[in-house]
């Protein structure tokens, strides 16, 4: 037992094993969804290859000296911004989003690597010496660090990934120790924006509430006016953005409200996914036996709708197993964040947690029909090399931080 003890000392199995199981379940589901498909039948082999690459990347990252992450955070961020600009200029359009960069036979999505870079850079900035997270200027810069990649990704456009970047940014600012006023500064524009969608009266009421709140916070005039102007500006900007929203995006919002309204249009996937999961029953229809999956009712099921393959073929038991594995992973990430030896490491883990959780929540929510259809992969399960490699790199970072946790210093 001594060996095991030592292993657990350096390497957290309660992170690694759930991740490994999820990846294996993902491979099984991808096999089922693609084996009889005319054009995607090679995807299983590709994903196995990606998994091996991801495992190697994981061990490399795990073995790196811990200082490397902080050191490379700013250059990594700069490179990822450059890549995001490059992809807008020279990228390959897949499913309406210009999100792929190709190097010969290999392609990857810069937005996947930008996730890591954003987390590292934001964590670095928020933990820099004498940083006051409750200072409007510091909050503004933190928001800006998030806003640059978000707006570049919005231009691809890849709404799902942009939402994840927003969640990461917000989570890090929240965890960075923001005060109630700071939280108000960050969140009130969002509230005002949403209020503006409900018409002028509601919008004006929300502005009045902002003013009342600002009085109650008893900040100086400059700060109060700045916050109010930010609110006003945000709402006008979003009003403009909403009006230039693409029709298919507006349709997605509508079809989420009533998927049966338009069964062959944008609500089609949501409806078919629910049919697949619902018809799976308690034990599922069995491996390769799901007719929704095998008859390809859900296009590209091996990517964003991989969860309904599991739901259909392995039923309630399989679906719950995946939920439990994710739950173990998330809780353990939260635990480890408390063990990290410095603020930077804590924020990195929180960033990774928020990233994985938002992917998980949006993807599974869409599969079972509780959130709108937003194209986001399910970490470790969905087909896609970039996503799997980046997710394993992040697990590598987490276990690296665990290896160097404060009990050892």
């Amino acid at each position, binding site marked *: 037992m001594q060996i095991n003890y030592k292993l657990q000392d350096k390497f957290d199995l309660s992170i690694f094993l759930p991740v490994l199981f999820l990846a294996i379940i993902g491979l099984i589901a991808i096999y089922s969804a693609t084996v009889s498909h005319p054009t995607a039948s090679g995807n299983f082999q590709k994903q196995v290859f990606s998994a091996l690459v991801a495992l190697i990347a994981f061990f490399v990252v795990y073995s790196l000296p811990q200082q490397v992450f902080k050191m490379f955070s700013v250059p990594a961020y700069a490179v990822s911004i450059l890549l995001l600009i490059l992809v807008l200029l020279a990228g390959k359009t897949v499913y309406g989003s210009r999100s792929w960069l190709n190097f010969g036979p290999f392609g990857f999505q810069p937005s996947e690597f930008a996730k890591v870079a954003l987390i590292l850079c934001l964590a670095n900035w928020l933990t820099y010496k004498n940083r006051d997270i409750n200072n409007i200027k510091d909050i503004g810069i933190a928001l800006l660090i998030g806003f640059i990649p978000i707006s570049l990704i919005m231009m691809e456009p890849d709404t799902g990934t942009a939402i994840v970047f927003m969640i990461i940014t917000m989570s890090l600012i929240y965890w960075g120790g923001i005060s109630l006023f700071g939280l108000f500064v960050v969140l009130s524009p969002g509230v005002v924006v949403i209020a503006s969608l409900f018409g002028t009266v509601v919008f004006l009421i929300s502005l009045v509430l902002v003013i009342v709140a600002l009085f109650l916070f008893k900040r100086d005039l400059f700060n109060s006016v700045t916050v109010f102007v930010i609110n006003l500006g945000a709402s006008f900007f979003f009003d403009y953005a909403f009006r230039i929203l693409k029709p298919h995006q507006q349709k997605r919002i509508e079809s989420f409200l009533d998927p049966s309204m338009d069964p062959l249009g944008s609500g089609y996937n949501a409806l078919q996914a629910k049919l697949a999961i*619902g018809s799976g029953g308690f034990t599922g229809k069995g491996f390769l036996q799901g007719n929704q999956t095998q008859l390809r009712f859900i296009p590209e099921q091996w990517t964003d709708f991989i969860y309904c393959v599991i739901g259909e073929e392995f039923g309630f038991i399989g679906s719950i197993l995946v939920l439990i594995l994710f*739950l173990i992973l998330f809780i353990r990430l939260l635990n480890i964040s408390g063990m990290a030896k410095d*603020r930077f490491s*804590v924020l990195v883990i929180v960033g990774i947690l928020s990233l994985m*959780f938002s992917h998980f929540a949006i993807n599974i929510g869409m599969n079972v029909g509780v959130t709108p259809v937003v194209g986001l992969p399910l970490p470790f399960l969905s087909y896609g090399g970039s996503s799997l490699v980046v997710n394993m790199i992040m697990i590598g970072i987490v276990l690296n931080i665990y290896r160097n946790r404060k009990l050892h210093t």
Partner: protein
Amino acid sequence: MNDTNFGSIIRRRIIFLAIILFVSVIAFRLFNMQILEQPAYSTKADENSVKPIYQTAPRGVFFDRNYQVLVGNKPSFTLRITPAEYDNKLTPFLEAILGVPEGYINRILKQNDQISKYIPRRVAKDVNFKVIAWYEENSSKLPGVDYVIETQRDYSFGIMGSHMFGYSKEISSGLLQKRRNEYSMGDEIGFSGIEKTYEDILRGQKGIQYVLVDSHQKTIGKYKNGEEDKTAIKGYDLVLSIDKDAQLVAEEAFKDKRGALVAIEPSTGEILAFVSAPEYNLQDFASVTSNEIWNKLNSNEDKPMFNRATMSIYSPGSTFKMLSALAALEEGIIDTNYRVSCGGGFQFGDRFFKCLHVHGSVNVTTAIEKSCNTFFYQLVLKIGLDKWAEYSYRFGFGKKSNIDIPEDSPGILPTRKYYDKAFGVDRWPKGILVSLGIGQGELSVTPIQLAQYAALFANFGKSAKPHFLKGYIETSTGKFVEVNPKTFDINISSKSFDVVRYAMFKVVNGAGTAGNIRLPDINIAGKTGTSQNPHGDDHAVFIGFAPYENPKIAIAVIVENVGFGSVHAAPIARDVIKAYLQKNNAQQIKKSEYLGSLKGEEREDFAN
């Protein structure tokens, strides 16, 4: 490291709770979907992926009374387009290949654009094999185009029979609304004639193949290995009472003529031959009927689509004299000794009714034999309108014949009520009744009524309603099921019949008006007639039966606008009678023998 500054316990708890809460919501949702609502989702999912493919069933074929094929089936190619996969750029190309006018395909696709674009539309039926061969070579370049083999009617058995057989066509949207449960779009339904009357047993049962389809409606395989599939079941074959040989002779005789012929087996009411001329070519209706053909048929002055045998009304002329004779004999108004002197006509009031000849003293037999008008002008006055109408009605006039095709007219039988309505009570013009005595005036009858009238004389007032169906062959068992309509008796003494029948015998075999059709070996009895009509030359009429001693066939013939019945109608009747009787009517071929005589592929077709 100050834990309270960043990563505080409260913040961690909030995140922890958020994670637990969300996962619980998802778990609850999964429980709902996969356990509580699983049956509903399963049903929907199955419907989603299983698609029924319908196969049309071949209609039952028509046999004559000796199991000779009258109407058959043959395979035909139907070209279809599935709009969801179809490329409109192919349209000019396809239209050229099919030889249809520009815009034809677009029109068909537009007509049906309210139904799912994944359902294939029949674009061309009865497609030439060359087109199919061309399609097979180029199918990869023709997305959304395919063909199916269906059966269509085959009328290549030598007879027309257009008005009795009738035709079927694609069900109209109005009818489809009413019979939604039985039919679906594009189904054939009997539209006229026997095809319509016996639609329910002729149509068979559609076959259903359940296949698994993907989200593009592309077939991937069988559902449950075809366990729930149903093969198409052919409709029942009908055995008609028609005698093909007699029918052939009748049709041949009516080439280039207008008119009608109905021959009936007197004891059963079975129709042996049935012609309404001109006929139309049913083959034109076997698949898609072109507008050109429709226009030609509808603009033809001879009205080939009109069923003269059951719908056209004529004055029966002198053929109606037997009715007065029989009524007077039966009512005791006259006997065979009653004589009238014919001086070439009859003065009634201020009007003189002519006879064709000066017949001198005639009794009822000679009056019929020589067709003396004078005798009957006076006789009908003795009988009176009410009795005359009553007897006419008993013989089937003034009411529908109830023949087993939908086209059926009652004709006009004038009664007291009829004239009161037309002229007012007690204000009838004089002489109305006198004209009726020789079958002229307001009286109007159909050929089928005349044939039944002849049959009742042949069989002493006992017969059954005229009909085509002898029986049908149940597809599943191969059993012949006979259909026999009830026989009826109009209750007139055979003593009265004897007198009139003998007179009819003399018409052909004595010094009568139809001596020209006398046969050495068969005794025909009959009566000629000339039907006056306001629109042109007289129609020639003949009714009769044979053999006189033991009648097997009764017949009515009307040839339009040609003059005397003896010259133009009677010889046709003779030829049909000859054709039917000379062929030793007793020979009845059993169905098994019929099957044995079929060639391989015909037999297969039959077995379907």
